[in-house]
C-alpha cells in the first residue's frame, strides 16, 4: 500500500464528497427553511441526468446540455413546489414523507414513459476526457478533478449567497421565523419557491455531472438520496456548512473503508474472511459513523442556531 495510492484515494474521497454536497446542500436548505422533508430530491437529480444526456446526444455540446439541465431542473423543481408541495408545509413530516415518496414513484414512471426502461448513454465531454498527472506517478481522471472544482465553486457561491446577499438574509430570517418576516413584507411563498428552485437546480447539476461517471437509469436518485440523508443528519439538519463538512466526511469514510478495510483486516484474518467481513464492514462504515455522531451530538456536527421551530 503505497503513499501514492493513499493520495489517490484521498482525492477519490474528496470527489465523492463533493458530489454528495451538491445533493445535500439543496436538501438541507429546503428542510432548514421550509421544514420540509423532500424525498423527491433524488428524482430531481435523475431528471437532471436524463435531460443532460438527451441534450448532449442531440447537440453534442456538454456546456449547452448543462445550461439546459440547470434551467429544466429548476423549472421542474419550482413547478413541483407550486403544484404539490406547497400544500404540505403545514402538515407533519409523515404526510410529507408519504407525499414525496409518491412523487418518486411518479417521476420514475414518467421517466420510463418518456425515455424507456433502458439506461442512457452520456459520455465525458471531449475537453475533460483523459487524465492529468497531478504529482509524478498519480494519474487522475480530469473529469473527476472538474467535479471537485465545480463543487468548490458551488460551496463558495452558496456561502456568498447566504451570508452576503439580501436574498440570503431573507433565507436565514425565514429559517428562524417565517411569520415575522412575512409580517415585515417579505413575500414568503415566492421565497420558498425560489429556494426550492435553487435546491432543484443543485440536484440537477449533481445529476448532470454524475451522468458521465455513473449509470443514467431509472431509480438512480434513490441510491444517492439515502447517502444524502446520512450527510445532512451528520452535518446538522438545515445547515449548509454542516452539509459541506458532512458530505466530505462521508465521502472520505466510504472510500477509505472500501479501499483499505479489507486489506487491513487481511493482517488479522485469512484472505477469504477478510474480504467478506471487510466488504460488509466497509458498506456499513458510514452508517456506523452516523450512529456514533447521533450518540455524541444528536443535533449534528454544525447545527443551525436560533431555529424558531
Amino acid at each position, binding site marked *: *500500500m*503505497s503513499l501514492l*495510492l493513499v493520495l*489517490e*484515494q484521498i482525492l*477519490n474521497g474528496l*470527489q*465523492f464528497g463533493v*458530489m454528495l454536497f451538491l445533493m445535500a446542500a439543496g436538501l438541507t436548505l429546503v428542510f432548514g427553511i421550509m421544514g420540509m422533508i423532500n424525498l423527491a430530491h433524488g428524482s430531481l437529480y435523475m431528471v437532471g441526468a436524463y435531460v443532460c444526456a438527451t441534450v448532449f446526444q442531440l447537440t453534442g455540446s456538454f456546456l449547452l446540455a448543462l445550461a439546459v439541465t440547470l434551467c429544466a431542473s429548476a423549472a421542474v423543481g419550482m413547478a413541483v413546489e407550486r403544484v404539490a408541495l406547497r400544500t404540505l408545509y403545514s402538515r407533519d413530516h409523515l404526510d410529507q414523507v408519504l407525499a414525496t415518496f409518491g412523487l418518486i*414513484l411518479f417521476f*420514475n414512471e414518467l421517466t*420510463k414513459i418518456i425515455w*424507456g*426502461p*433502458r*439506461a*442512457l*448513454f452520456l*459520455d*465525458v465531454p471531449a475537453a475533460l*476526457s*483523459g*487524465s492529468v498527472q497531478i504529482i509524478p506517478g498519480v*494519474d487522475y*481522471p480530469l*473529469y*473527476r478533478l472538474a467535479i471537485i472544482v465545480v463543487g468548490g465553486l458551488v460551496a463558495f457561491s452558496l456561502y456568498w449567497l447566504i451570508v452576503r446577499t439580501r436574498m440570503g438574509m431573507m433565507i436565514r430570517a425565514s429559517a428562524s421565523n417565517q411569520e415575522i418576516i412575512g409580517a415585515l413584507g417579505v413575500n414568503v411563498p415566492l421565497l420558498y419557491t425560489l429556494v426550492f428552485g435553487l435546491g432543484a437546480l443543485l440536484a440537477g447539476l449533481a445529476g448532470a455531472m*454524475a451522468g*458521465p*461517471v*455513473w*449509470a*443514467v*437509469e*431509472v*431509480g*438512480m436518485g*434513490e*441510491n*444517492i438520496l439515502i447517502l444524502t440523508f446520512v450527510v445532512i443528519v451528520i452535518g446538522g439538519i438545515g445547515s449548509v456548512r454542516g452539509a459541506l463538512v458532512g458530505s466530505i466526511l462521508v465521502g472520505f469514510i*466510504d*472510500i*477509505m473503508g*472500501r*479501499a483499505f478495510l*479489507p*486489506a487491513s483486516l487481511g493482517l488479522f484474518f485469512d*484472505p477469504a474472511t477478510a*474480504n*467478506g467481513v471487510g*466488504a*460488509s464492514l*466497509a*458498506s456499513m462504515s458510514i452508517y456506523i459513523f452516523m450512529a456514533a455522531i447521533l450518540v455524541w451530538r444528536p443535533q449534528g456536527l454544525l447545527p443551525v442556531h436560533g431555529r424558531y421551530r
Partner: protein
Amino acid sequence: MRKSMTALLAAAFLIGMPGLLTAQVKVGMITTLSGGGSALGVAVRDGFKLAVDQEGGKLGGTAVELLVEDDARKSGKALQVANRFMKRDKVDIVTGIIWSNLAIAVVPKVVEAGIFYISPNAGPSKLAGAGCHENYFNVAWQNDNLHEAMGQYVARKGFKNAYIMAPNYPAGKDALRGFKRFYKGKLAGEIYTTLGQTDYAAEIAALRGANPDAVFFFLPGGMGISFIKQYHQAGLTGKVPLFGPAFSFDQTILGAVGDAALGVINSSQWNKDIDNAANKAFVAGFRKAYDRLPSLYASQGYDAARLIGAALKSTGGKVDDKGAFRAALRKADFDSVRGNFRFGANHHPVQDIHVREVVREGKVLTNKTVGKAFSDHADAYAGQCKM
C-alpha cells in the same frame, strides 16, 4: 322490468361462462420494475409476455392470466407480493425474481406451499444443492455457470494474475467461486463491493495498484454501466483486458456504456445470433413488439413462459395434479431459444455456454458469438441435491 333484469343476468352469466369453463392458469410474476436494476425485470417481463402474446393470451393452448408485481429489489417487498399471490390470488405458478438474495427469501416459502416456482434468472447455489426442491425449476442457469466459463477462458488464454470483483450478495459469492473453480492462476485481488454501488473510484485505484494482467467482474445492471465507464475514464481500457459474464455486457448495458465495451469477451448461454428457428422467431418477435434488441434476460423470460407452455400442453392445461405437471416440466419438451437444453437432476439447466465478443453492428453495440466454452455443462451442486 323484472323479466328484462333476469334476461340481463342470464346474458351476463352466459358471457361469463366460457371464461369459467376453460381451464385457466394463473401465473404470478414478482420482478424488479423500479429503482436500480429495473431494466432486468422489464426484460424478463417483456420476454415472458411476448411468449404469451404470440399464442394469443395462451401458453400450450391454455389461457393464462399473468399477474405482474414490482419487488423494487427488496426482499421484504418480494415476500409480501409472494404472500398475496399465494393467499389472495391463488396463483398456480410463481416466477420472475431477478436477484438471488430475494430468491433465497421467497422461493422456499412458495415451493413449500406446494406452488411451482420457475426461475427466469436467479440461480443461487443454496437452492441448487442441499436446498433444492421438487417444485423449483431454474430455466436460466445456476449462478456459477457463466462465471465458470469465463474462468476457463481466462485460464486457457494464459492469464496468470487476475483481479476479480463482484457485489457482496449470494450471486456475487457464487460468481467468484464459479470463476475460481476453473481459473487456477494467481489472484491479484478478490473484491466484494456493495450491491447497488455506483462509484468505483476506490476499487479502480486499488486495482491499478495491484497491477493485474486481467480483470474479471460480475456487476449486473446499472452497477456494470458505472464500472465500465469509470474503468474507461481511468485509462485502463486496452491496458488491462476486461472479462465478465453476459450480465456485465448485456444488451441493456451496452447502449449505456458506448465504445468502452467494444471488443470485450464475455460468456453466455444465449445470444441473438444462435441459429435455430425458435431463436429467430423470438428475436424478430421481440424487435417487432418492443422496438429494441432483446437481452439475455428477455430470452430467459421467454424460455420460462415456453417451458410452462410445454408442460401445460402435455397435461392438457391441468396444474392440480402436481405430480403430472412436475413430470411434464422436468421433460422440458420445448425448443429453447438457446438450442441445446435439458434439466439436470436438481432441476437446473444442462446446456452449452458460449463465448461472445462485443462488436458494433451498424450503429448499435451488440454481442457476437465467437466460440463455445462448455458443451452440456451441468452445475457443481447437483450432487448435493436429494430430491
